[in-house]
C-alpha cells in the first residue's frame, strides 16, 4: 500500500523535522525568559507529533497514530501547565 519511494519520502520528512527540533534546543538553552523555553518546547512537541505521524505512515503502522494523538494531548497539557507555572513561579498554580 505504501511503496518504498513514498516511505523514503516520509522518513526524510521525519529526519528533517528531528533536525529542526535539535536547532530549537538552542532557544531552549539560551532563553532568555522562561516563556521562551516553553515556546521552544511547544514547537518541539508539535514536531514530535509530526515525526510520529510520519513514521506511522513510513512503517505502515496505523497503531503508531495512537501515540501521536496522546502526544498532541500531553504536549498541550505540558505547555499550559508550565506556562501557568511561570506566572510568579507557581504562586498561582
Amino acid at each position, binding site marked *: 500500500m505504501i511503496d518504498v519511494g513514498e516511505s523514503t519520502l516520509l*522518513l526524510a520528512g*521525519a*529526519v528533517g523535522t*528531528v*533536525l529542526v*527540533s*535539535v536547532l530549537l*534546543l538552542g532557544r*531552549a*538553552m*539560551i*532563553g532568555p525568559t*522562561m516563556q521562551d*523555553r*516553553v515556546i521552544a*518546547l511547544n514547537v*518541539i*512537541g508539535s514536531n*514530535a507529533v509530526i*515525526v*510520529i505521524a510520519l*513514521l506511522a505512515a513510513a*512503517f505502515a*503502522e496505523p*497503531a*503508531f497514530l*495512537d*501515540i501521536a494523538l*496522546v*502526544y498532541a*494531548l*500531553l*504536549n498541550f*497539557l*505540558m505547555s499550559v*501547565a*508550565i506556562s501557568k*507555572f*511561570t506566572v510568579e*513561579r*507557581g504562586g498561582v*498554580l
Partner: protein
Amino acid sequence: MITPIEAGLLVFIVATAVMTALLRDVLAAIIVFGGYSLGMAILWIVLQAPDVGLTEAAVGAGVMTVLFLATIARTTRLTGLEATTVDVNLPAAALCVVFVLAVLTTVPALPAVGAGPGENPAFGEISEYYVEEAYDDTHVENVVTAVLVAYRGFDTFGEATVVFAAGVGVLAVLRRGVFE
C-alpha cells in the same frame, strides 16, 4: 547500521540530557527534561516498541512534568540567577567521560540486534514462543499485553499492588488535611 533518523534522535536526546544537567534554573531543567521524554518516546517508536513509547509519552512527557512542577512549587528557589548554566567541575567531568568511554568499550561484546537464537539470549526460544503462540493461547493480538497480563499475571498483580501501596503510602505521608 544506524539510520539517519536514529542518529538525529540520539543527538537530540544526548543534547537534552546534557542540558538538563547543566541548566541552573530548576524550571528550565524541567522544561528541557520534557524535551528529553519527547525524543525518547520517538526513539522507542523507531525501535518498534509502541507500548513503551506510549508509556514514555503518557508518563514521561505529561504527568512527570506536572508532578515535578507541583513539587518545585513547594520549594524555594534561587531567582535572578546571573549564569544560565552551572559551573562544571572539569576534572570530574573528564573522569565521567573516561568512565563512560570505558563502559562503551564493552558494547561490541553484546550480541547484535536481530542475531539469531542461540547467539542472543534476548531472542531465544522463549521470545519465539511468545511471538508465535501468544494469539492461540490468549486470543490477544498485542503480544505485550498477552505477556503482561496472561503469561506474567502474578507479576502484574504484584505491580498493581505496588502502585496501590505506593499511592496509599505517599498519600498517608503527604496528606496534611487534603483528604477531608
